[in-house]
């Protein structure tokens, strides 16, 4: 057991899986000697060599496109896209090919790749280094989408993703990378994809969130003094809507919190699912606290864009007062 931050937990998961399975290879920009711009792959190049930790040319579509070929041939590539803002050039390969290869070939080929992507704001980064595009990839059938909020979950979820037979987009919230440490077992463990975590139990209201926003939610709950249940979805597709239903059926009120823009965001999907499943139990409309439908501002104003404990607290009050 070690006290690790999220970067270290992911590094540990990568090195243990590479040790265990020589089909796992890492590729991307600056992932080699440099250890990645966030140092997530630090030490892996020295340990596993340049054939398994591969610095590629600077081309995101190429990184995902070649990963598809590697995966079709039976390897387990782990491409890194340096920031979520640069996932766009690889969108075609991810959505037109990785997501569809299993159906296109009726299972003859699968694409077991896990693309790691740092995501979200809050670290004073330049433009296109702070966005939250997860809903776009959840909307694409054939992909799985994961976003942990803690070191412990990150290790267990990443190992599950690496062993999964289907393509996984593994978003890593930058704001959490070095925000805190927690006990992370050295021993092998997995956290199944598609299972949410109840962060804290409560009876008055349910908050559903994921990624860095989970931490803002915890602060808001503490300030509220209410008995609030917090669900961290952890996997965004497939989504553990049963966990949401179980909680909202008990609390009758729900606030969804995400950093991504409001319109077409996952909050809308979650609210619709709650309507379908818990309509008769609901005491208040589902509240959404989200980023705005604007371009993510430069960092001087980024905290005005991202949901914080004050905005979440207001939504809690609104839902409880209804």
């Amino acid at each position, binding site marked *: 057991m070690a006290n690790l931050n999220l970067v270290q937990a992911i590094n540990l998961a990568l090195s243990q899986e590479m040790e265990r399975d020589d089909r796992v290879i890492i590729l991307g920009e600056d992932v080699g000697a440099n250890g990645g711009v966030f140092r997530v792959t630090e030490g892996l190049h020295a340990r596993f060599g340049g054939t398994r930790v591969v610095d590629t*040319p600077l*081309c995101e579509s*190429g990184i*995902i496109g070649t990963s*598809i070929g590697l*995966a079709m041939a039976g390897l387990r590539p782990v491409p890194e896209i340096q920031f979520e803002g640069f996932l766009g050039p690889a969108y075609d*390969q991810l959505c*037109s090919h990785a997501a569809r290869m299993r159906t296109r*070939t009726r299972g003859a080929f699968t694409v077991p790749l896990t693309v790691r992507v740092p995501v979200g704001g809050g670290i004073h980064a330049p433009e296109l280094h702070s966005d939250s595009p997860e809903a776009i990839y959840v909307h694409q059938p054939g992909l799985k989408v994961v976003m942990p909020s803690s070191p412990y979950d990150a290790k267990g979820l990443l190992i599950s993703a690496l062993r999964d037979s289907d393509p996984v987009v593994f978003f890593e919230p930058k704001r959490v990378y070095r925000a805190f440490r927690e006990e992370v077992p050295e021993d092998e463990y997995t956290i199944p994809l598609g299972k949410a975590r109840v962060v804290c139990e409560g009876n008055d209201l349910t908050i559903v969130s994921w990624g860095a926003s989970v931490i803002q939610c915890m602060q808001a709950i503490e300030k509220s003094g209410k008995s609030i249940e917090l669900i961290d979805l952890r996997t965004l597709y497939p*989504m553990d809507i049963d966990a949401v239903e179980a909680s909202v059926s008990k609390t009758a009120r729900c606030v969804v919190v995400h950093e991504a823009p409001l319109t077409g965001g996952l909050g809308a999907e979650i609210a619709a699912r709650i309507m379908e499943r818990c309509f008769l139990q609901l005491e208040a409309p589902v509240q959404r606290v989200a980023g705005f439908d604007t371009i993510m501002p430069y960092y001087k104003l980024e905290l005005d864009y991202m949901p914080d404990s004050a905005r979440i607290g207001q939504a809690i009050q609104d839902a409880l007062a209804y």
Partner: protein
Amino acid sequence: MFGSAIGPLIMPITTAFKTEIERISILDEHGNFDESLGKDLIPNADLVRLYEAMSACRFLDEVAFKLQRSGRMGTYPQNMGQEAPSLGAAYVLTKNDWLVTCYRENCGLFWRGVPMESILMHWMGDERGNAIPRELHCTPIAIPIGTQMLHATGLAWASKYRSEPHIACTFFGDGATSEGDFHEACNFAANLEIPVIFFCQNNFWAISVPGKIQCSAPTLAQRGIAYGMPCIQIDGNDIFAVVYAVKKAAAYTRATSKPYFIEAVTYRLADHTTADDARRYRDQAEVDIWKQRDPLIRTRDLMKKRKLWNDSKESDLQERLGKEIAAAVARAEGIAAPDRTDFFNYMYSELPSDLIRQRETMHTHSLGQDPSQLPAGAAMPTATAH
């Protein structure tokens, strides 16, 4: 490399790099045969088989066109005139080398062992046509332009990673060389030393857009120079030139683990697809010139010259192909309709519970909700207030 490239402030004018593009033609449209390159390249028995394969592909193409026109098949891209490039590659490469195609490589796919009915079913809108066995080492028809070159690079990379001798050969058109993925694939393969043959079928037309809008240089082959690849231009309607070039490229690629670029100059004798009308943008005179350059005609003439072929063998062949292709059409059309839930079944290795629910409720009034609901079309129960 650039970081250390600090030269003197004043440099003499010299030539930094100079090259030329070799063009290979062995059997030309007039029947001239270059013995120096073509002797013993293709044994006579193989030449007959290759001709029969091109004829089969051509026959299927004509049948497919009629199927589309009579409403029995959806949009179909004819291969007519472009039989030789993929066939020559499939003939030279081993069964463990990857063929990574777009959609005008039927001839090579058939040679590799893909059943004709699979291709027909694909264009008949039946996904079961894509169920190509893994051991054929063919990827499914790629619809987006140029994207498959990166898959070929990844597939060949995996062979290299496992120290296997297999290479990949990927096909694309002149239009694809304008795509970013073309550059990324060439750059990736060249710099990471991945054994891929980049095989460009330059057929002059990307639907209606002529080659000059894709490339201002005199050849497409020279695009490969920028990546440090050997590049060659060949007569793509000359099966001998194709076999010559692919043998050379495969030997180089296998020995060095580096990529090789082939530009095969050919011509799309038909429309882009059955949804296209090429008369809107190109002259019939141009098409007529290329009809004289048909790969089948010159191959047949050579076989006759070598006493390998005659009119009676030709009519026997056409009769045999007629029967075989009618049988393939019958298999493609005769297959039982897919299960109506079929398109759910290959989404993930294990279907998520939400998709199982959507599948169970797909024919009820409200998708994804209560599986106990009535099927769509059934009378709704009288509404009751909650």
